[in-house]
């Protein structure tokens, strides 16, 4: 599987430019998409999912232009939108059967697949209750299940872990980890640790443009050896923030432990192992 995004731009009206000449090639594996609000992640995902059309550019899936032939993509797509909803009067089983029909899949295997998915996502006990009575996390898991119904070759998850408790987040990661070998999985999240753990490749976006793309080591390389921690008096924090690129701060009994990026660390600082979050913050804030 090979997805090529070539010079894609998306304008909303004259002023708002959600994507600017965006290019990216994705092959089998999990691609983590990171970026602040308004970076264009959701727009990009909706364009790949054939919901929106780009203003310019093309997208090729195995050399097929999906802008012209959207059904080629739709036939092998699993998509979890960020702001999706459900029909509250249907139960999970009915809803998934409906989505399967919309996707054009069925047959004897469908019922088993739905049951297995519901079981794997810890929803089987509530499968016969109307979805309107589900909690936010349960609805999110129904959304994840529908994305996986048709054995998709391209899976797009837009903020899949929103509303999931830590245990469910771990279960989700385990669930999709074995998909990466023969499929393209695109995953966006604000929770950097989710991407850190499961993504093979990371793409960082800002203001509709691609800032960096590569494996974790490549992304982190930028900041490796430049991440430090120092404990300072809380009264000095404001000045410190002004002088240094602060990544995070933890308050404890009158002092503050500051994690920061610097090529010239202040005295008393301890060098720390660089993390994806450090690289992300450095790239998007600098």
């Amino acid at each position, binding site marked *: 599987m090979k997805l090529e995004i070539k010079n894609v731009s998306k304008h909303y009206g004259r002023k708002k430019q959600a994507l600017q000449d965006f290019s990216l090639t994705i092959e089998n594996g999990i691609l983590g998409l990171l970026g602040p609000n308004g970076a264009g992640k959701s727009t990009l995902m909706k364009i790949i999912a054939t919901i929106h059309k780009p203003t310019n550019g093309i997208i090729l899936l195995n050399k097929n232009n999906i802008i012209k032939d959207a059904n080629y993509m739709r036939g092998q797509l699993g998509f979890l939108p960020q702001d999706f909803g459900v029909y509250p009067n*249907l139960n999970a089983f009915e809803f998934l059967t409906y989505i399967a029909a919309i996707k*054009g899949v069925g*047959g004897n*295997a469908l019922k088993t697949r739905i049951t297995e*998915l519901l079981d794997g996502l810890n929803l*089987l006990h509530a499968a016969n209750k109307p979805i309107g009575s589900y909690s936010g996390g349960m609805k999110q898991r129904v959304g994840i299940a529908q994305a996986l119904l048709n054995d998709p070759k391209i899976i797009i998850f837009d903020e899949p872990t929103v509303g999931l408790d830590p245990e469910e987040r771990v279960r989700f990661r385990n669930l999709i980890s074995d998909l990466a070998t023969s499929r393209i999985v695109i995953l966006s999240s604000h929770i950097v640790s989710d991407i850190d753990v499961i993504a093979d490749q990371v793409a960082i976006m800002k203001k509709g443009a691609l800032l960096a793309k590569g494996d974790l080591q490549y992304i982190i390389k930028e900041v490796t050896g430049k991440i430090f921690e120092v404990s300072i008096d809380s009264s000095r924090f404001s000045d410190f923030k002004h002088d240094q690129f602060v990544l995070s701060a933890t308050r404890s009994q009158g002092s503050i432990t500051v994690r920061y990026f610097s090529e010239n660390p202040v005295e008393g600082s301890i060098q720390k192992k660089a993390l994806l979050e450090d690289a992300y913050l450095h790239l998007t804030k600098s």
Partner: protein
Amino acid sequence: MKPFLNVILLDYIIRIRSYSFLIILYITTAISYTFVPEPNANYSTIRIGEHVGYYNSAWFGYVTAIMTSIFLSLLGFYLVNNSIKKDLNTKVGQIIASTKIKNFTYLLSKTLSNFLVLLTIVFIIFVMSLVLFFLYNDGFDFELAQFIYPYIIITIPSVFFIAVLGVVFEVLLGKYSIIQNIMFFFMFSFLLLYSPQKEIEYAYDLLGSKIVIHQMEETVRSILPVEKADTDMTIGYVLANTIQAKKFKFNGVEFSLVFMSSRLLWMILGILLIIILSPIFHRFTVREYSLPKKRTKSRHIEHTPKEIILSTLPIPHTKLSMLPLIKTEILLLIRKGSLWLWLINGTGIVLLTTLNIKTAHQFILPILWFLQVHRLSDITSKEIQNHTFYFISSSFRPLQRVLTSQIIAGCCLMLFLAAPLLFRYAIEMSVLEILSIALGAFLIVSIAIFLGIITKGKKLFEVFFFFVTYANINVIPVVDYFGGTIKNTSHTLIIMCMTIIICSLSFLKRKLEINR
């Protein structure tokens, strides 16, 4: 005071910015254009026997004012009676409930914002009446007072009370929009039929139109000999050539102090109703509207989920059959609304079976179909309301499969309800009637789908269906979409053509949306 005014103003802005409001304004402008017919037109809106008024300022002012009062009392209610529900559905209500705002202040702000919405429409009709006066000028002087008085004394108090009723019905019957519709339907019918006998009784006329009608009838009576005094008033769209009608000069009404006070009292009564209802307002503690009462919240129970490996799960086959889609669409239609509505439907089906076939066809069928208004109105817009639009638009051939299944499901529901009547006609071998009913079902479902697609909401269809049903019950042939009164092949062919055109437009619009 300023925050209170801001709440009203912002609520008003939110509502007038909606796409459906824009469409309603277009429709209002178009309808108000017809309130006073063009001099050569083949219809009349207000006619006293064979008489219509000279096109002077008073005729324009009073005719448009009472038409607005009647038209907007009916349409306006359906337009504004979801303002609290909107806050509930968008969860803004929960934020409001956690603020210091008093129930009375909140309800009053909703009432005033409803009023402003209706007032906007009144203003457009008022401007249109001025435009029409200059357009069809019969050589009479322009008298602004003859335009302003009737609007202030008749129309504005009526629409204010309708704005109040919108809130009152929501507070009392917020969960049950279908009961609101039915109750208002009866209430409006009563208001139209109310016939004051004495001077003082005009004060009880909420719509305020009876006193003007009485004055017009009196004017015609005064110019006719007693034996020829045909002064029966007809209001509404009646086929009759305006230029051939006899003319009389209408100089407006001198409103008595009692009548003018009564109009003010209606407005005060409205505010009193809000004060009385404030203590029982639910303040958003009710559960979501879409859920029946008894259902309990699903809790996360102790359960060890199975560890599954996705790559080993059975793979479903490609199956492009529309049957599962149609089945689910029917299921969604059936499950919408409470069980007791199905009991009413059951009663309707029994009446279709037992009553005289003409009565069943002409009156019971349109009412029974109208009772499905809440099911049909969001048949296509439910995807927007429930945020399932992305699933549909990223699905395989959504246009051909999903939209078609929605049309088929809607028709199945309507035909199921009409089944006893169809069966009776089948026994009588009345093919035209069967065809008319089937096409009627198809047409009304197509309109529901089309209006849902273009407005992305359900209000416009609800208002439209209400008007059509009301007109059909009053046996107005032009709106007979199901062959209740007109039984000829050419009418059936017109219905068929309309259905095809509306369906094609729906497919076209949906295609544009998907391709966008």
